[in-house]
């Protein structure tokens, strides 16, 4: 039944025009130099990539990776226990709690981040409260702390939901078997529950780390105009500096970085998958 095959043709034309050509244009811009933002005449060059390896820009890359890593670790440390607690509740309670975790994700991210400005600001809610006791003001807005807080706030639900999904599907008889065989709570968790939940942990890490590396809204709102992560650097090249060639080169570097790290996490995920006891049993 091949009658519907033709239906895909318009989409092939569409993706060529709106996905393939735009990506090629980024590559073209990254490797060429032009006076203004026109494509002709083309001069090939590697200067934009070379420029990225200047200390100023490497510092930005380092800072972005650092902040994203800290965010991911915090999300994992807070998210795992919460996902675990939710997965131990009654079924109705689980649905309810997961709905509560999901609702904020449906609310516009800019609005939720904007809300933090009025809480953290020097004249904001927390400092206003402290002032009543003659304390403060503590500088919170426009610091690393505020940026990490904003990222954890935005991305924690992804971590919780990924880990919860795996934990809630886990076969309970495995845990019971572990207790029956004499393991205590800690042993059961370390040797049965945690290894079995690793695939959720890995997809949670991916879903937190990737947007955290590339976001430019959160650093702009909570880090202030001078706070530059790699996403802000790209934004500035395109919106205010007008250096599209350099901007394209940075984007390519970031995209490559992300593709590589996704590939690596997929590999880890597969190894974990192969080591899974349930799979081995099935294969045997």
């Amino acid at each position, binding site marked *: *039944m091949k*009658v*519907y*095959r033709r*239906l*895909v*043709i*318009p*989409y*092939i034309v*569409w*993706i060529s025009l*709106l*996905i*393939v050509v*735009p*990506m090629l*244009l*980024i590559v073209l*811009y990254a490797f060429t130099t032009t006076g203004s*933002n026109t494509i002709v005449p083309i001069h090939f060059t590697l200067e934009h990539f070379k420029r990225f390896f200047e200390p100023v820009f490497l510092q930005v890359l380092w800072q972005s990776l650092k902040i994203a890593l800290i965010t991911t670790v915090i999300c994992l440390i807070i998210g795992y226990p*919460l996902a675990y*607690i939710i997965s*131990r509740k009654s079924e109705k309670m689980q*649905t309810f709690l997961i709905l*509560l975790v999901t*609702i904020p994700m*449906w*609310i*516009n991210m800019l*609005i*939720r981040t*904007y*809300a*933090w*400005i*009025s*809480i953290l*600001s020097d*004249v904001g*809610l927390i400092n*206003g*409260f402290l*002032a009543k006791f003659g304390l403060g003001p503590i500088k919170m807005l426009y610091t690393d702390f505020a940026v990490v807080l904003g990222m954890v*706030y935005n991305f924690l639900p992804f971590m919780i939901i990924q880990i919860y999904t795996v934990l809630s599907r886990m076969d309970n008889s495995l845990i019971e078997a572990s207790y029956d065989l004499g393991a205590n709570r800690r042993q059961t968790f370390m040797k049965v529950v945690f290894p079995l939940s690793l695939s959720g942990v890995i997809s949670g890490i991916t879903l937190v780390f990737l*947007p955290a590396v*590339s976001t*430019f*809204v959160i650093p*702009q709102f909570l880090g202030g105009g001078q706070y530059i992560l790699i996403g802000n650097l*790209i*934004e500035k090249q*395109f919106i205010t500096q007008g250096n*599209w060639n350099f*901007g*394209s080169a940075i984007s390519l570097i970031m*995209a490559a970085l*992300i*593709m590589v790290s*996704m590939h690596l996490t997929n590999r880890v995920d597969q190894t974990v998958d192969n080591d899974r006891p349930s799979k081995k049993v099935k294969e045997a």
Partner: protein
Amino acid sequence: MVGIKKHKGLSFAGMFAMLAFFYAPILVMIVFSFNDSRSLTNFTGFSLQWYETLFNNREMMAAVQTTIAIALISTFVSTIAGTLAAIGLSDSKPLVKQVVLTINNLPIMNPEVVTAISLMILFTAFKVPRGFVTMLIAHIAFSIPYVILTVLPKLRRIDPNLTDAAMDLGATPSQALTKIIIPQIMPSVISAALLAFTMSFDDFVISYFVTGNGVKNISIMVYTMSKRLNPSINALSTIMVLVVTVFLVVINVVPMLNKNSAKRIKV
């Protein structure tokens, strides 16, 4: 026993802290949208003045209209186009399918800002003036891949014999499509449409780069206003939070009620 009790207390405290963390900023926003002064620290009295400012602000109202118009049109177009493409794809040769799906995945895996600048460069290179139309095209472009990924798994599970039988009995391919295939995949088409709508409604990064000519959606407006605090943004946010919450409660509760009534009928 004491250990278990302590554990329960800890888990309750954890849940409570999590919900407070998630909802405190939203709650603060809602409360201060009713404040009768500009202050963010003191609630000086109840007032609806920020709502009045909001509804009288032509720029904000225009942004709301743009957001809704783009979300509706892009959902409509991308759901239909994506569903048809998915049906075509499920019928295609493995190689075609693999290549198309790989390209389809690019905008999903790429950081949003990269997709955004790629479209910005595209529109500039082809001298398309940036504004409402480019924003709409971009929204359709980033929604279709998600529609396809939502609909395709469902298409794999439907029985091809039904379609074949319909055609053996004299249905034309397009009749078989609308009477046999579409009804079977309808639930996933609806969830694809919901996904497309919310993604378009909340989008900032891509809209920000491909717009021009003063066309703004709600996210772009919040972004440009973030420099100084404006309580009417709190008012707008409160309305949006309310709409989203009601909507989510409805889609989560209605199926439960339906299930209950279905049970009753069975009994």
